[in-house]
C-alpha cells in the first residue's frame, strides 16, 4: 500500500514537480492550490476513507497561508498527529522555529531534492510498504 500524500502549493510548477517526484517514488499524490483548498481536499480524502499519510505545504499562499493551514489541520482532533512537512524557500533556522511553532513536523527547503523529499516523508510517515 503506497503512501497518500497531500501537497499544497500555490505555484503550479512546484505542484507539478511535487506530483512528479512523489509519483515516481511510488506515492499517491494529491495537490491543492492554497490553504483553504488544501482543507477541502483533505476533507474529501478523509470522506473517501483515504486520508493522507502525510501533508506537504508551502508557506506563502493566497487565501490561507501555510501557517493558517497547519493550524487548521492541527485543530482537528483526528489530525493532531498528522505528519506535516513545510516546503519553503525561507532560511533554515528562522523557518524551523516558525514552522515548529505552528505545529509542523518537519521542513524542507526549496528547491527540494526528490531523494531528500522521499526520505523525509519516510522519516515522518514511515515506509508505506514496510
Amino acid at each position, binding site marked *: 500500500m503506497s503512501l497518500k500524500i497531500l501537497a499544497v502549493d500555490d505555484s503550479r510548477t512546484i505542484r507539478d514537480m511535487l506530483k512528479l517526484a512523489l509519483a515516481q517514488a511510488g506515492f499517491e499524490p494529491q495537490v491543492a492550490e492554497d490553504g483553504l483548498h488544501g482543507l477541502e481536499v483533505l476533507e474529501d480524502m478523509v470522506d473517501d476513507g483515504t486520508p493522507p499519510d502525510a501533508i506537504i505545504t508551502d508557506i506563502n499562499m493566497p487565501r490561507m497561508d501555510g501557517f493558517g493551514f497547519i493550524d487548521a489541520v492541527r485543530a482537528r482532533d483526528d489530525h493532531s*498527529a498528522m505528519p506535516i512537512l513545510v516546503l519553503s524557500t525561507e532560511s533554515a533556522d528562522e523557518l524551523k522555529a516558525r514552522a515548529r*511553532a505552528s505545529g509542523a513536523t518537519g521542513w524542507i527547503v526549496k528547491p527540494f531534492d526528490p531523494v531528500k523529499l522521499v526520505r523525509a516523508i519516510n522519516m*515522518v510517515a514511515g515506509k508505506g510498504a514496510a
Partner: protein
Amino acid sequence: MPNDPMAEIRASFFIECEELLESLQDGLTAMDDGDTDSETINVCFRAVHSIKGGAGAFGLEDLVRFAHRFETVMDEIRNGRLEPTRDTIALFFRGADVLYDIVRASRDGESLDTATTEAVLGDLEALVGGVIEEEEAEEEIDFAPMTLSLDPIDDDSADAPVEATPPGLLIRFHPAAELFSSGNEPRHMLAALRDLGEITTTCDFSMLPALADLVPEEGSIGWEVSIATNAKKEEAAEVFEFVDGLCELSIEATGTPSAGLPDLDSIVIPGTVDDGEAPEAASGEEPEPDPEPEPVAATPTPPPEAAPTPAAKPVPAPAAKPQAAAPAGGKDSKQAAGGAKATVRVDLDRIERLVNLVGELVINQAMLSQSVAEAGIPANSAVSSGLEEFLQLTRDIQESVMMIRAQPVKSLFQRMSRIVRESSAMVGKSVRFITDGEQTEIDKTVIERLADPLTHMVRNAVDHGLETTEGRIAAGKPADGVVTLTAAHKSGRVVLEIKDDGGGINREVVKAKAEEKGLIPPGVPMSDQEIDNLLFLPGFSTAKEVSDLSGRGVGMDVVRSSIQALGGRVTITSEPGIGTTFSISLPLTLAVLDGMVVEAGGEILVVPLGSISETLTLQASDMEQLGAGTQLVRIREEFVPILDMAEKLGFRSPLASYEGSSVLLIAMEDNTRSALVVDRIVEQRQVVIKGLQESYGRIPGIAAATILGNGRIALILDPADLIASAGSSRTMPALDLAG
C-alpha cells in the same frame, strides 16, 4: 508523448511566470493608483516569491538571485517598514521589467546585459539601506543549489582505507513531549536509521514512571542505537533533523577511524539551544541526559549477514491516534479548486490542427449547400432544413474553436506600459499611460504578431507625438503627457487605438520633409490626410535628428506592412494642438471571415463583410460626373466616389454607364466612404482564409484567397487597400459635400 516530464514542467513554469508577472504588474498598477491594501501587496510579493521558488527548482541562478533581492525589498513594504511611495512603486515597476527580462532570458537560454539588472538592484537596495547586503550573504547559503543537501556524502568514507575494527555509530536519543505533538514519530526515525546499516536498538526505560503516572503524550523512554556503518555522523544526524531541539540526542562514531577523517569527537546536538519553547519540556521531562553512557566498547557490530534486528518495537505511539475512518462519502469532486476556473493546457499545434479541420468543414459545407441547390431540392424539404441546421452547427463549432485561441490583449497592453515607462524615461518626458479594453479578446496568433508594430507606435507616440514638458507648459497643457491605448470589438473586427495628446502632426514639416527626401514631387497640393499618410512611406522619419528611440531602423512603413500582413489596416487622424491617433483595425482571427461573394468582370471575388456598411443599386439620377474620370454617387446628401472593381483589378476597361450595377459602400477607418461597383452580388457567407503571402507575397488590394463551394478559388479583397491605392493614383480623396 510526454517523453520528458521535467522539460514539460519547465515549459509550464515559464507560462506560469508570465501569469505571475501579469499579476505583479496588475498589483503594482493598483498600488500606483493608491491601493495599498495588504492583499494587493501580498499578491505582488507572492508573484515574485513564486517565480523565485520555481526558478530555484530549475537552477536558474540569475532569476533566483534577482527575485530574492526584489522580494526582500517588497517584504519591507509588506511588513510596513517601507512606505509605498510613488517613487518606490516606480522602482518596483522597473524591477518587474527586469524580472520579465530575466525570465525571458532564462527561458531562451540567453544571457542578459547585467548593467540594467545591477542598476535596478542598486536602486532597490538603496531603498532598504544596508539590509540587503546581509540578505545577500544569507542568500548564498540558502539558495546555492542544495547547500543544505543531505545526500549521502560518501566519497571520502568510501575511498578511505578500511581497517581493523568495523566502523559504526552510537546514537542516544530521548524524545521530549513536543516531539510527539509536532507529529513526529520516533518509530519512523529508528526505521530510517536502518538505511544506514545494521542496527541494534536498546530501549532505555530508566525514565519510565509508574504506569499510573504515565502520560502517553510525554516521551518517557529513550533509545540507544548502534549501527554498523561507514556512514558519517552527519548522515545519522539528518534523521533527527526535524526534531532538533525536541529531544536529547548524541551521536558518536565508534570503531577504528580511518585516517583522514577529522571529525572524531562526537557531535552532540544540544537539544535546547536556540528554541525558546523547548527547554522546559526537555528539562521537565528528564533531569539528566543519561549521564551513564552504555559502555561504548559494546559496539563491535554484528556481522552484516546477520538477520536484521527489528527496529525498536515497543514504541509508545500517542501520535498514532486512530485516523477518523469517516464514512466513505459520495463526494467525487476532488478538484474543487477554490474559485479558479479549471483549465487545460493544450499544445498550440493541436489547436492549429483543429482550426484547419474546421476550415475544411466550412468549405465542405459550402460544397454540400451548392450540390443541394444544384439538385433543385425545394427549400422546405428535410434535406434543406437539415442543411440549415448543419450550417448553424458549423458556425457554432467554428466560433468555439476560434475562442480557444482567443486571449485578452492584456498581456500585450502590459508590455506596452513598460515601453511607455522606458521610452519616456529615455526622452525625459513625464507620461501617463492609460489603457482601456484590455479584456478584449483576439486570436493568440494575432496578439503575438501585434507586439512589434504596437511597440513602435507607442514609442512614436512618446517620442514624436508628445511635446516636451516645456512645450506642453508653453501650450497651456498639463505637464504630463497622456498616451492612451484602447482595444474594442467593432463589427467583427478588433480596433486598437494609440492616442497621444501631443501637438498633432506638423503637416508643413512632414510635407517639406517628404519633398526634401524626394518622396513626393514639390509643390503638389495635398489634403491633410494625404500628408498624414506620408508617414507611412518607406524611408520617412519626422525626427529632426535620429533619436535613440526612433533610430531603430523601423519606420511606419514596416508597421503598416506588418499590420496588413494580419489582414489589418492602420489609419492616422491628427489635430493640431490636440493630438494624434493611430487606429489599427484587425480581423479577430486569421482563419475564417464573413464575406460577400460578388461577381466583377466575370470573376468571382469575396469582400469581407466587416468592411461593407451597406449595398445598393445604382440609379442614373444619383450619379454625378466630377472632372474627367471620376464619378460620384449621392447617398443621403453625401457624395461618394465610385470605384469600378473590375476595372481596378484589370479585368476589363471602364464602362460607359454604371447604371443598374450593384454597389458596396465601404466605410474606411477614417470615416470616409467609397462606393465599390460590382456586376452583381452572389451571396453572403463564411469563407475560409487561405493565405497567399507565402506563395505570392503581398498584392495590393488582395488580402487572401478562399475555396468556394464549387471547388474554385476566389480572391478575398482588401477593399480599403484597394480604394486607398486607387485614391493615391488619382489624388482624389473622398469628398464630404454635406459637411
